[in-house]
């Protein structure tokens, strides 16, 4: 504890030199009693971006608040200003210095800094969101919170299978890396499953990957042009998944009447408002719930560390709630339960 305190002091002096940001909302939640036995203090270190980003950071922060409320603890956040290990590390150190006992880091970019900090502060529990850990190299006070993307994709695909009129569905996605592959193939399998259930033989859902390159997730024009190509060939439900690339697809699909699009990761109703005319749902990682769940485990003493999995689901239908038949909604709810319980496999390896 003492060692960590000294490290914290060091970090704070670094901060004084102008390297790190001060806690953004230190005043909104009193952390002066952190360190007293039994009090859970949760610090969220965001990735670049704000806790109002309607995406990962916001979901994690809401989860931390919900978790804090449930265990009667304290929650605060620091917004990172740069995507560097030094920035993340310094922000983590600020919380450590104030004797926080749970630190949540958001996004795979923070993985290195989180692994290092977990080794440095063995008394603090770390929750790394969207960080798949090599558990042979990490300490037991660190949990990497992940999601089964294929399950989220499958549920979204199942809904797509009931919403398509032409039977033609597709996915415009980022680079073919494991999480993207799981989303896309899960989606295709979900569509096929829904088709089989209705006694229809749908053509296989088409997956269009972005070519390799550092622009794979920031190429909205690619997403838009590819979605348009699918639309013009009668594809009427399209899953657009992959950062800016996917968002470009969503926005383009929204411009064509009578077509549906599905977002990814978080409820994109908020993150890509221009997609609202077509956005029936988003294949979602339940980040807030997963985070709150881990905090509850810390309180209960059942926190295990290692790779843990949160639940997935699909986002609210918003205005489409009135357009998606109630019978379909009921089926989607039922299939979600089956998928989450493991009684139905997605067929994605």
């Amino acid at each position, binding site marked *: 504890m003492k060692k960590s305190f000294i490290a914290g002091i060091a970090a704070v002096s670094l901060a004084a030199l102008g390297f790190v940001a001060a806690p953004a909302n230190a005043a909104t939640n009193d952390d002066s009693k952190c360190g007293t036995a039994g009090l859970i203090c949760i610090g969220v270190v965001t990735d670049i*971006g*704000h806790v*109002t*980003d*309607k*995406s990962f950071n916001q979901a994690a922060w809401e989860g931390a608040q919900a978790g804090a409320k449930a265990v009667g603890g304290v929650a605060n956040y620091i917004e990172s200003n740069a995507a560097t290990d030094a920035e993340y590390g310094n922000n983590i150190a600020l919380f450590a210095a104030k004797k926080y006992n749970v630190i949540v880091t958001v996004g795979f970019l923070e993985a290195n800094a989180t692994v290092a900090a977990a080794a440095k502060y063995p008394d603090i529990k770390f929750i790394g969101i969207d960080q798949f850990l090599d558990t042979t190299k990490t300490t037991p006070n660190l949990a990497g919170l992940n999601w089964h993307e294929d399950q989220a994709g499958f549920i979204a695909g199942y809904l797509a299978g009931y919403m398509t009129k032409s039977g033609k569905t*597709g996915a415009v996605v980022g680079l*073919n890396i494991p999480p993207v592959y799981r989303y896309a193939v899960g989606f295709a399998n979900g569509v096929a499953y829904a088709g089989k259930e209705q006694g229809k033989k749908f*053509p*296989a859902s*088409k*997956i*269009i*990957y*972005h*070519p*390799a*390159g550092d*622009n794979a997730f*920031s*190429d*909205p*024009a*690619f*997403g*838009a*042009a*590819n979605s*348009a*190509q*699918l639309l*013009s*060939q009668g594809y009427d439900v399209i899953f657009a998944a992959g*950062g*800016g690339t996917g*968002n*470009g697809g969503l*926005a*383009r699909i*929204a*411009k*064509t009447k009578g077509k549906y699009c599905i977002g990814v990761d978080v409820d994109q109703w*908020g*993150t*890509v*408002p*221009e997609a609202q005319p077509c956005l029936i749902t988003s294949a979602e990682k339940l980040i807030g719930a997963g985070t709150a769940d881990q905090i509850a485990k810390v309180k209960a003493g059942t926190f295990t560390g290692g790779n843990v999995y949160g639940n997935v689901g699909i986002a609210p239908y918003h205005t489409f709630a009135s357009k998606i038949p109630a019978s379909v909604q009921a089926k989607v709810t039922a299939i979600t339960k089956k998928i989450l319980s493991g009684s139905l496999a997605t067929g994605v390896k």
Partner: protein
Amino acid sequence: MKRFNIKIWQLLLTIALLAIWIYSYIANTDITNSVVASGMRFGMPLALAAMVGIMCERSGVINIGIEGTMLLSGFTGFYIASWSKNIVVGLLVAILTGVLTSFVHAMMTIQWKMDQIIAGTIINILASGLTSFLYKEGSTIPNSWPIFDIPLLGRLPFIGHAFFTQQGPIQYLGLLLIPAIWVMMYKTRWGLRTRAVGENPGSADTAGVSVIKVRMINVMIGGAIGGLVGGFICLELVGSFSKEFTAGSGFTALALMIFGRWNPMGAFAAAILFGLAQALSTQLQIFGVTNIPNQFITMLPYVFTIVVLAVSAGKVRPPAAAGRSYEKEQA
């Protein structure tokens, strides 16, 4: 002076492409239309971005800051459109931003005679840093430029559906703008002066053409087009701003400009060719060609472009004075 240096291979390539087009049009009209239209969608932003390069280099100024110009213009265009709730204002601001950015480039390269590559790099770095730093999530514009069909033209057989339907106004504008630039470059006094300044500024100066003025104006017209592309992507094609949305297209555009031999129509053809390759790669994925790894399929447009470049380009000759600042000789 020959404007279309059509060589035999170019003719063959064109005939081959036309033959493939006609064949597939007969075989499956809908898919062919869809692929060609998609090629246009992929190609038009690149073609317009290549025009920026042509405007600048034809007058003797290298501009590798196209990427940054587009990024900055897309940024200001989008946020102003979001703030004013008016996409017309947004587009105008995007164009204005392009002009201002290129004005900076013009001042650095023409007036202060800085190294042109470095000046362009500065603009790229500045644009990338500034737009990332000022970026704010969740802003929206009331609507993006709508897509529509052009009456009559859209119903033309063969080309109508692919070129004149389901696109936005700036996409259509590009179809007018690029030939217009070609006409201006080769058929007007201004074009002659521009080319003279780009090839031999000393002679142009002797003939009474103000090298500095011609260059300044051309670079800024180029900037306006760059701004238009930024606005095109953010306000029409996509409808939102995302960080680094240009995704390297400013540099691809430079390659297409060289491929098109600094000729507006040539660069346009090159961009459409690249766009078509991209659309075909997508179509292969839609056809569900699963026995070829998709990494290979997604690579094809690039391989195709490199092959076509290697086979066809031969020796290209940039404007002779491109990249060199003009110093008046001492009397």
